[in-house]
């Protein structure tokens, strides 16, 4: 089974040279720490920066330099700054090659819910609806089940949707899965996790074809 770092490391293996990447808050943010050797990517934050760098050194924080999670950040050499409309022009116009975000639920048709629990506090969708509706390549990073052990990979979402039919790939603490027209297709198992365990934790349709390899994570 993977921890959050492990999920981030596994998704980092998907990065390709020259990609522009938008990372959501939470597990996705960790991916920036595990970019493979020899791969050069640029991170976009939807509040208006491309070429986002690491956190500033203590004492060098600049209130005018934050990411979409409102964390203080730095800019890499070759970075650029722009307004929110230009930022979402990049996103909506499909100039971003990969979007990674968290989810509360994913359905086996690619629907995603991650912004609202009716009756509880509604914080808002932020940029998530633009991201999922626009990106060709969306990976969801999340735990396979919620805190009560209930599957988050469902036949149908129960929460209000963020986007429809948009998720392409899911990386959880248990598995890597592709979203196909016939449901979740199991691609890899997390180290030490059996197909049966994944099946048991997946409420939506799960496709298991042939031998399922175990992930390779350093």
């Amino acid at each position: 089974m993977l921890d959050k770092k492990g999920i981030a490391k596994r998704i980092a293996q998907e990065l390709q040279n020259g990609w522009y990447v938008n990372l959501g808050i939470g597990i996705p943010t960790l991916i920036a720490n595990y970019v493979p050797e020899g791969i050069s990517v640029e991170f976009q934050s939807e509040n208006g920066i491309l070429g986002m760098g690491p956190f500033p050194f203590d004492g060098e924080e600049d209130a005018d330099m934050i990411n979409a999670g409102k964390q203080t950040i730095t800019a890499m050499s070759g970075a650029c700054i722009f307004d929110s409309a230009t930022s979402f022009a990049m996103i909506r116009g499909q100039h971003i090659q990969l979007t990674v975000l968290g989810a509360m639920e994913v359905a086996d048709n690619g629907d995603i819910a991650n912004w609202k629990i009716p009756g509880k506090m509604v914080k808002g969708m932020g940029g998530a609806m633009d991201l999922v509706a626009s990106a060709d390549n969306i990976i969801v990073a999340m735990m396979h089940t919620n805190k009560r052990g209930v599957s988050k990979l469902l036949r149908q979402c129960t929460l209000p949707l963020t986007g429809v039919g948009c998720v392409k790939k899911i990386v959880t603490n248990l598995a890597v899965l592709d979203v196909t027209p016939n449901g979740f297709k199991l691609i890899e198992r997390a180290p030490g996790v059996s197909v049966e365990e994944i099946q048991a934790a997946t409420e939506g349709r799960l496709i298991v074809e042939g031998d399922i390899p175990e992930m390779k994570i350093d």
Partner: protein
Amino acid sequence: MNKVVANAKAAIQGIEDNMTLMLGGFGLCGIPENCISALVEANIKGLTCISNNAGVDDFGLGLLLQKRQIKKMISSYVGENDEFERQMLSGELEVDLIPQGSLAERCRAGGAGVPAFFTPAGYGTEVALGKEVRYFNGKPHILENALTADFAIVKAWKGDPMGNLVFKGTARNFNPLMAMAGKITIAEVEELVEPGELDPNFIHTPGIFIQRIFQGVNYEKRIEQRTVRQKV
């Protein structure tokens, strides 16, 4: 052309109860601190505020929420604010949540004389309820209307008396878009420079969009999430 006013109090003249305001900023970054304080002091009520966020309990738009000056918020993300939550759950506060990219584009459209446009964001969700759906290249889109405001209030780094503005870092965010969409737009700046001091080739917001400008005072520029690393 000189659009300089003395201070925030002078700048907000004409803002009345029940008006619609746009306020720049993302989180607490790039918010018009001086004008928010002046609005609190003037105790203008029943405001509809279009702003990506709603501040925190004791800063930014949270100050207006505390005094119940806001009737309705139009935002994309409103976490980090207990008083907001209380007012929303109790029904005191109306809230219209909008995808962030649609919010930005709707402000720009309002300023650019584009009354409506199609976007894929929100299709198939609550956001699309009651909105026209149309397919382009086989992909569903919804029709979104432009947003405008009685007053837009933005915060810039530098500005000149004609209203030309330059922003710093990610404090730019929604400010240039909202600047376009106000019937009257107020700019508060950290530094008011002489005419001609800003390079015409590198101005973020052309002065034509600004009606009033002043140099603000005592900027706190509070940081919401101070994240740092240690030098090795």
